[in-house]
């Protein structure tokens, strides 16, 4: 019943070792889509596979996939999380790029990679582009699962965009070119580390005007609140915080970190949108 409800909603889904059997077709579609995007589209030929499924050594039972699915189960975007307790991209393939600091290696540190969006113009029914929901979903998940940081090798332009967010994203190395071999295009990226906590999630969702949880219910996780998916303590706390605190208090906390533009947007938003009461929040279709 819950699964049927969720599958109708266009939300962010978390797929891991606990529930991947329920998403077998979706995962297969994702690997096909990644092949189409990264191999056919970006021309990363070294990832080409005869079966048309883009999978590498970091697609294992320990991988977690965060996917934005449409109400028709169409994949609109995704990202992969991988534990740092073993081999990772940053401690193998991109090890030499970490010239400022090494990637943290611990159960609470994860690596993110294979970010993709199929249609940048797509908007949710709340008017949010896929990348916002995807990142917010990843942060919700990470905070709920007590993940302290996400590291990964990202494009320089993505790093610059991240600087506009109230995020503590640090460089582990300097911008360098990669690829360019055997006819592959040359990219320009750097290794980074994003530190996470509940405040950061709260600020991110405030900047993006996301008041409610956006993760779908998730089945099978060994989390004490798994009966209600990842709408766990952290997410509920944010919901409560936004319900109880005045918009002035929230903005005051953000002033030091966010850009003027974002603050202006937030001010406009909170002026024109009354803070939802808990009863309104509970009617929200999560």
């Amino acid at each position, binding site marked *: 019943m819950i699964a049927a409800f969720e599958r109708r909603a266009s939300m962010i889904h978390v797929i891991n070792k606990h529930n991947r059997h329920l998403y077998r077709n979706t995962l297969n579609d994702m690997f096909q889509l990644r092949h189409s995007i990264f191999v056919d589209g970006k021309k990363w030929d070294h990832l080409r596979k005869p079966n048309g499924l883009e999978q590498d050594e970091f697609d294992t039972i320990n991988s977690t996939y965060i996917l934005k699915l449409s109400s028709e189960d169409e994949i609109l975007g995704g990202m992969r999380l991988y534990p740092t307790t073993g081999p990772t991209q940053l401690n193998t393939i991109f090890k030499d790029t970490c010239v400022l600091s090494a990637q943290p290696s611990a159960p609470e540190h994860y690596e993110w990679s294979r970010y993709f969006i199929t249609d940048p113009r797509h908007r949710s029914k709340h008017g949010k582009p896929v990348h916002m929901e995807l990142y917010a979903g990843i942060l919700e998940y990470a905070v709920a699962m007590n993940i302290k940081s996400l590291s990964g090798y990202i494009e320089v332009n993505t790093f*610059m965009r991240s600087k506009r967010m109230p995020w503590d994203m640090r460089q582990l190395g*300097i*911008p*360098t070119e990669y690829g360019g071999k055997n006819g592959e295009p040359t990219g320009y990226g750097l290794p980074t580390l994003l530190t996470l906590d509940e405040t950061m999630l709260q600020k991110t969702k405030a900047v993006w005007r996301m008041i409610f949880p956006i993760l779908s219910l998730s089945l099978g996780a060994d989390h004490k609140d798994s009966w209600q998916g990842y709408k766990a303590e952290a997410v509920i706390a944010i919901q409560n915080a936004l319900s109880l605190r005045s918009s002035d208090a929230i903005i005051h906390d953000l002033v030091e970190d966010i850009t003027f533009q974002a603050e202006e947007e937030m001010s406009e938003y909170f002026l024109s949108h009354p803070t939802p009461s808990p009863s309104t929040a509970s009617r929200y279709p999560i």
Partner: protein
Amino acid sequence: MFDVLNEFLNKLPLVKTISELEKLIEPTLKHYHIEHFICTNMYGLEGMNDLKPMFGLWNTPWVEHYVRNSYYNEDAIVLYQKGLDGNGIPFYWTDLIAEKKLTKSQYSMFAEAWKVAKLKEGLVIPLLISEGEPEELALVSMAGEHFTQDPSLRGILHSITIQSHHRARQIIMREHRTGKYIPNRVVWDADRPVEKLTNTEITIIRYLADGKTITDIAKFSEKSPKTISNQIRAASKKIGALTTTHLVILAKRHGIIT
């Protein structure tokens, strides 16, 4: 090689004003052989009523010369920057000179930078500030006599640029919010009075603007090439031109010729 960058990144969050930021940037960049540094907000540059450096503008003689003569209107770096697709990869001055077809005055600018300011190589870093319409770009250009192409050095300078730009933006936005006036950091005096040229000097400049050589002008005027050269030198001195091309540009700018 990375110790100085690490030290810079550690100190950056403690910086509270643009002035403090510049004091932090300057020795860091000089450590990496940078002697010229400018970061401007590219938005609105076309009209050029204002030049808005986001941070860092070393008041070197070259920068003063560049700004005073409105070189940004014709600078190949600026024009190339505007046509970028936003991939964010920095490019070197010498690569731009080698790969792009530049106009005579654009070559002349690089030649002046080389000869006058001894800026033999430079790096330009595109910074996409916003992706709205129109796109807002920041231009960071840095150069030095002993600066050379090196991928690691480029990565270091790009890191300093991104992080400094972000910090500068935070500071400027905060000051703007609190009502503090952010002055333009360039005193641009295009209308400064110039010493009056003689009719003969103006005529020679007109000939130069028409593409005539000193020999051509000497023939028309029935004077020796040496005399024409002396008159060009005198005119250049009066209006602060460094080359004959520069003399023509300035004469046009000041309305001496049309």
